[in-house]
């Protein structure tokens, strides 16, 4: 379980995360939404050790992880994919996944021949199949499509067999069909890998269709938390994020 308790992050006078307290149960699928600048990515950066909270506590499976180095947090079982696909541009897709698996197997410093280990090869093949990247597996990562790069980024995190996976806008920059495909893949991965998954997304329809729990942030604070049904009907969320419905009469008056 991941628990954030009164987490505050200040950058000088700017409060990016303001007294955020959230709980993510094991094997749950949650979404974090909110307007630009609401503090969503900052929250991910705090959880993954990229930033250190100004105050508050972040506990994962009972251990305090706030302030730990990213590599140490990864070893605790937290994986992450990025808003802009963060991959290894000169390696092929299968090499990229294999090196990530090698890192998970604690063989990153081995001077033995790369990818000869049976476990590493089998897990890499599993990941290629799971992500359905067979058609590009032997191509250079920097030369494949944006959608496949995003999948590869997710694959790099999955290679570490995370207990908790954080996806920062997995469908960003994709066309409408691709976005739905991506979210189907995310849901399939969540089910098959038995992990806790938290994702950030701007597309409300995707979020309502995919997430079990939704947390809405505004100005760094939690505005609302609940199921899709609850969030849909939450008046403050409607006003702050979804916008109020303008009636025909109001439009005419305004004109």
């Amino acid at each position, binding site marked *: 379980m991941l628990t954030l308790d009164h987490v505050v992050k200040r950058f000088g006078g700017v409060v990016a995360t303001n007294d955020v307290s959230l709980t993510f149960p094991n094997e749950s699928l949650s979404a974090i939404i909110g307007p630009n600048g609401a503090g969503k990515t900052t929250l991910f950066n705090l959880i993954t050790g990229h930033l250190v909270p100004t105050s508050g506590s972040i506990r994962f499976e009972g251990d305090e992880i706030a302030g730990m180095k990213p*590599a140490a947090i990864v070893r605790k079982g937290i994986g992450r994919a990025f808003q802009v696909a*963060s991959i290894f541009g000169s390696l092929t897709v299968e090499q990229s996944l294999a090196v990530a698996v090698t*890192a998970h197997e604690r063989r*990153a410093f081995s001077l033995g021949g790369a*990818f000869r280990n049976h476990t590493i090869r089998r897990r890499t093949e599993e990941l290629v199949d799971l992500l359905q990247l*067979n058609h590009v597996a032997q191509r250079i990562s920097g030369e494949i499509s944006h959608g496949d790069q995003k999948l590869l980024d997710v694959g790099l995190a999955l290679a570490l067999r995370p207990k908790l996976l954080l996806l920062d806008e997995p469908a960003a920059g994709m066309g409408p069909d691709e976005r739905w495909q991506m979210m189907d893949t995310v849901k399939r991965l969540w089910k098959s890998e038995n992990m806790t998954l938290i994702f950030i997304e701007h597309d409300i329809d995707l979020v309502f269709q995919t997430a079990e729990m939704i947390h809405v942030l505004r100005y760094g604070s939690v505005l609302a938390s609940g199921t899709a049904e609850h969030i849909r009907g939450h008046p403050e969320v409607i006003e702050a994020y979804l916008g109020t419905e303008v009636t025909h009469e109001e439009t005419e008056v305004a004109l």
Partner: protein
Amino acid sequence: MKSYRMTAPGHPLRTLLIAGAGLAVLLILGLVFPSPWLRDTMTSLFASGLLAMSLHLLVGYSGLVSFGHAAYFALGGYVFGMTLQAPGYVETFGAWSLPSAMLLAMFGTGGAAFLVGLVCARLSEIYFAFLTLAFQMLFLSLIQGFVGYTGGDQGLTGGIPRPAFLGINVTQSWDRYAFCATVFVFGVLVIRLITESSFGFTLRMLRDNEARVKFLGINTYLTKVICFTLAGTLASLGGVILAIFTSAAYPEWASWTKSGEAIFMIMLGGVNTFLGPLAGALAMRIIDDVTLLYTTHTELAKGIVILFVVLVLKRGILDFALDRRRSRADRRANRDRAAAHEKERADVDS
């Protein structure tokens, strides 16, 4: 959908066989053409080749640009020479003096590179590069300052004792050539095995995207320190070869121009191919020798060639050649596909 099967990795035995074949070619070359000029030229190429290839481990594979790599090349030569010149050393170790001095040079330099790496790896990019340069200047100052041990500006002259061992007498032309060729091939083989290992791929990841490597749970600082240490240790082998060849060691080996020369070799030969730096070392040597037939302005000739490579080829010579070969193969494959498609259509029509 059919389950994916990963591409089979190259077998390390294949690398060993290629290295063996390479050594055989070098030895045959030395036997078939017994001219002292060829053997001497090749021996000095072995030294500069190892300097460039070990630097390539940092620059090409890890994305760590070091401006001070020649310091470890020089340190190898100096530790080797000073050990053998130390009073009583040759008398004590006898036939094992030379190999033990070589090991001492490698491990001593590796130790120094490790300590410098611990400091430099804390910084990145240009700050890393300048710090390596600062350490090189420090090493150069030490070499010039401790005149009693290093010979100062004059270098480690007076001849380095090189007693024969296992029937190999490196004061003889053939023995020296064969021994230096073996050390060179050993160094290249080690570099190759590193680049093809899991650690070699960790280095490539570091070059491509250091931030992402951290999120795979890998200690990037430690990765840099290990790479720096290995590169320094391997550069020392180049220094040892040159010290055996010249029977001396000179402070110019530790100058920043020597490091710059190694970077030029990598640029000239190609940063994306394993043997690129070696091709660069060879090209530099050819430019030097050919230019000297007509003028003493070798630096001008090197500058013009580097400008040509950077501005016209836009990549190193070997990278350019391999890219050409690859695009020719792609064109041929496209033509074959189109022809097969045409034939298929013609068959359907008929």
